[in-house]
């Protein structure tokens, strides 16, 4: 497997940098190593743990077919220091059916990096992920995707966050893809918090329909959805939907788009208040790079290309609070790799 295409999506395979490493090539799962955290294939886990049936296909409606994927469980009170990595790789088969289950038990902490990539130019990736973030637990889920021009990607993700729990999702898509549709949905209990950040670059002939939805079901729960879309062509639909169902629920949506040359960006922010005492807001803006910003930086000695590159990088720099430094570096690396292709 080409190592650099794995590095591009944050997969290191290095026990000194990761707590665990899981890889699924086509439909074959392999666990290389795992410490302080339980990692196995979903099929294996379902055989081993009778209780897992109460989690499997409970947040997402069951689909037909033969699914396998990763099962990750962080025991109660355990804070996994290094990130756990999981890679889904499309090599020979035409389609991949993935079912992942992640459980962070009470008071635990998990950083999960998943990278998806494809060697095949065409292919279909169906990924189901169910996340259970228990009381006071915290899960940071960073996904860096590197698809090929003719890949079709249809992941479905649902997250249940219990009292005082935190779920942070970072999604980065910087390579061409034929079709990607994803609308992860989080259900929040009392005082739970969810943050979804995404950075997406659309290329010619790509169709990307991406959003996040959060149900603020518990008192005092809060959500933030931040998206940055850059279009070099093709079409990007940037969605966001926050539903305020409980006393003191708070939600903010921020959708920003930048058009470089051509393409379509369609931002659809939705706010839905179903309780009188909720606080929901959104801001959305789409435009091209302002010439006066480019000129300003040029009067500080930067060339036109350097100025554009600095502005794009600034646009993609979303200050994600609580994001571990190591994950920030992964995202920065991915952005660096795509930067040149954008100018």
């Amino acid at each position, binding site marked *: 497997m080409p190592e650099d295409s794995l590095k591009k999506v944050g997969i290191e395979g290095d026990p000194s940098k990761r707590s665990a490493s899981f890889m699924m090539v086509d439909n074959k799962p392999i666990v290389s190593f795992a410490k302080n955290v339980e990692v196995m294939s979903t099929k294996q886990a379902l055989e081993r743990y009778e209780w897992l049936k109460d989690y499997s296909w409970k947040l997402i409606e069951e689909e037909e077919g033969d699914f396998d994927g990763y099962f990750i469980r962080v025991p109660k009170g355990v804070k996994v220091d290094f990130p756990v990595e999981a890679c889904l790789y499309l090599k020979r088969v035409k389609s991949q059916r993935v079912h992942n289950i992640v459980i962070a038990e009470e008071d635990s902490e998990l950083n999960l990096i998943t990278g998806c990539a494809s060697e095949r130019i065409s292919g279909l990736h169906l990924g189901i992920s169910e996340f259970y973030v228990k009381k006071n637990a915290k899960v940071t889920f960073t996904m860096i995707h590197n698809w090929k021009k003719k890949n079709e990607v249809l992941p479905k993700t649902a997250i249940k966050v219990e009292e005082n729990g935190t779920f942070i999702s970072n999604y980065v898509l910087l390579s061409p893809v034929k079709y990607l549709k994803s609308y992860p949905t989080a259900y929040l209990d009392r005082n739970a918090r969810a943050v979804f950040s995404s950075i997406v670059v659309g290329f010619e002939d790509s169709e990307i329909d991406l959003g996040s939805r959060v149900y603020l079901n518990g008192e005092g729960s809060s959500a933030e959805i931040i998206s940055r879309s850059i279009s070099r062509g093709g079409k990007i639909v940037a969605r966001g939907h926050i539903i305020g169902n409980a006393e003191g629920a708070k939600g903010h949506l921020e959708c920003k788009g930048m058009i470089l040359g051509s393409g379509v960006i369609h931002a659809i922010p939705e706010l839905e208040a179903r309780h009188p005492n909720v606080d929901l807001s959104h801001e959305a803006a789409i435009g091209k790079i*302002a*010439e*006066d*910003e480019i*000129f*300003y*930086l*040029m*009067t*500080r*000695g*930067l*060339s*036109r290309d350097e100025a554009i590159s*600095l*502005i794009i*990088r*600034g*646009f*993609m*720099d*979303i200050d994600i609070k609580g994001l571990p430094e190591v994950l920030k570096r992964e995202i920065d690396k991915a952005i660096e790799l795509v930067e040149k292709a954008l100018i």
Partner: protein
Amino acid sequence: MDRGILRVVNLGVEVDGRKILQNVNLYIQKGQTYALFGPNGSGKSTLLMAIAGNPKYKIYDGRIIFKGRDITNLQANERVKMGLGISYQNPPKISGVKLRDLIRHCAKLGGTEDKVEEYVKMLKMENLLDRDLNVGFSGGEVKRSELLQLLLMNPEFVMLDEPDSGVDLENIAVIGEAINKLLERDKPEEERTKSGIIITHTGHILKYVDADYGVIMYRGRIACVGDPYDILKTVENYGYEECVRRCLRTL
């Protein structure tokens, strides 16, 4: 020996097809500081933008000569590398780009990496370095940030667009100190090599920085050149129109 650093010859500038400047001539020598006065919309900022090389400001006539070289068609960053520096009245806000990153570029360009700490302290910018460029900056903070960038770029020719507007009394002395350093007004006259143009609407800054000459820009032309303090006084007492009329009469 020719001590001329900037020569603007018969300059005509248009913006969006509208002629803003006509037949502007200016000759500035090494070590000289000019104060540029004029009513709103007279073309002061347009002149600085054209000299800096903003492509939005089209030169339809004339030439700009800097250090003996015709820079009329040179890119802005190339002009900056030759030693031109400009500070903005209202610089754009750029999200995600930190002031710290930009001043690193400026210090590299000016070879002033060892001065960063000193200038940051002098301009009281410590708390702004990790902020997004000009986002949420107060009027005074914007001006101090502009001057910090210029000090680090260490240009030979300095253009300042209203460095004193929107600055409170407490900060104006700091800004005056920075400009004096930029233009070497703190050195004896014969040792000065830096020159520049300061646009000032109110003239406040001239209480802190002494300019050698004053120029009035009026309806897109240079209407008057003289002692900056005389000009300022006349404008304060009689207004621009009368000042220009008197000036023409004495020519």
